[in-house]
């Protein structure tokens, strides 16, 4: 069953964000990670040394594994940052910084 129905939630209308130029729907109050997971995306970063895939690990802002680039700002914790209409979310490679 849809958890929104389970909780009797009546969320505000959904809005659109993009992940690597792909449009996703998100609900107000979601984190970036929630929006990505809801779209079936579980990895949005590659590690600095070996380029291995990373997504949510701790989910509570402690481990810094879920870092992602949001609106050109790298190293945002997807599990903490609230998603906002029009956010441009991108896979982060390495440090996310040029040079």
């Amino acid at each position: 069953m849809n958890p929104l129905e389970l909780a009797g939630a009546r969320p505000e209308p959904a809005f659109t964000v993009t992940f690597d130029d792909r449009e996703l729907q998100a609900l107000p109050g979601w984190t970036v990670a929630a929006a990505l997971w809801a779209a079936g995306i579980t990895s949005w970063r590659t590690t600095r040394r070996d380029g291995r895939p990373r997504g949510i690990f701790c989910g509570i802002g402690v481990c810094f594994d879920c870092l992602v680039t949001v609106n050109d700002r790298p190293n945002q914790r997807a599990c903490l940052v609230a998603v906002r209409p029009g956010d441009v979310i991108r896979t982060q490679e390495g440090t996310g910084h040029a040079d």
Partner: protein
Amino acid sequence: MVGAACALYAARAGLDVALVDRGPVAGGTTGAGEGNLLVSDKEPGPELELALLSLRLWDELADELGPAVEYEPKGGVVVASAPEGLAALEGLAAEQRAAGVEAVDVPANRLRDLEPHLAPGLTGGVLYPQDRQVMPALAAAHLVRASRARLLTGRTVTGVLRTRQGAVRGVRTDRGDVHAPAVVNAAGTWSGEVAALAGVTLPVLPRRGFVLVTEPLPPRVRHKVYAADYVADVASDSAALQTSPVVEGTAAGPVLIGASRERVGFDRSFSLPVARALAAGATRLFPFLEQVRAMRTYLGFRPYMPDHLPAVGPDPRAPGLYHACGHEGAGIGLSTGTGHLIAQILGGGRPELDLTPFRPERFEQEAV
């Protein structure tokens, strides 16, 4: 770290070593450090001699363990932002050169050759090629492993065993006794408590320091870079908060920003004023850091001694007890020399350096 180095050099001198630690390896001040191996911040004297000996030994260890402990012979750059500060810095550098330190004066227009992202308008600086860095938790762990000492972590020393004549014969722990003809007190900031268990006083006090950790970055800070007033802060006796910017990159990517000093006991609570002061100081040196996110902070307690010198050597008040503690913020750097000297005296030899300035009982005599 100091305990690990004592274990390594004692074991290599042929002694049977057991390491007893209340917590895990690097669970105290070692794990809260930046891993500095510095000569630049030391005035000529016994501490600098210990630092030079220690650097030589770190270089030897690096042949075995270098990559594993993130050993980086990166050098240090000390910068001044005003002419008076530069004059004092160059004066110190001249004295250090006379004591065997490599120190190269760098005019203002050459600073950016060394550090391209440094702020404009600095007056000049001094390059210290001998300054180095390790990752302290890795260093402690690898030294312990290399020592092959018996490792007893999670065991709290609750007493020091002594014969009726007063000689030390081992330690009592919460999980049984460990018998030994010699006990080395390398409990860092908590060494005063261990000394008290042996019935002797050692005035080790905690001096708190915070480190700000940035998000991982591509290499942008090449050396350990700090402001000239850091040396004065290190040598200060004040209990009040002092901060002076110290900035360094790490092998893993984050930039570490220090350094604060304050004597507030073992208070582990976060301090926003300290974090603010550290961030402000660092962005004065490296303006690009304004756009960089600080991910977290950590804090630790340097083992502070009233005269800023460690206690290294036998304690005549408790035969069989040796101290290797009180290195304040320099314990990672000074650990190898300390361990080497302790191993020399445990083996009955003459220590390579004169240990008189480091005598653990020196404060008692001063009090008389």
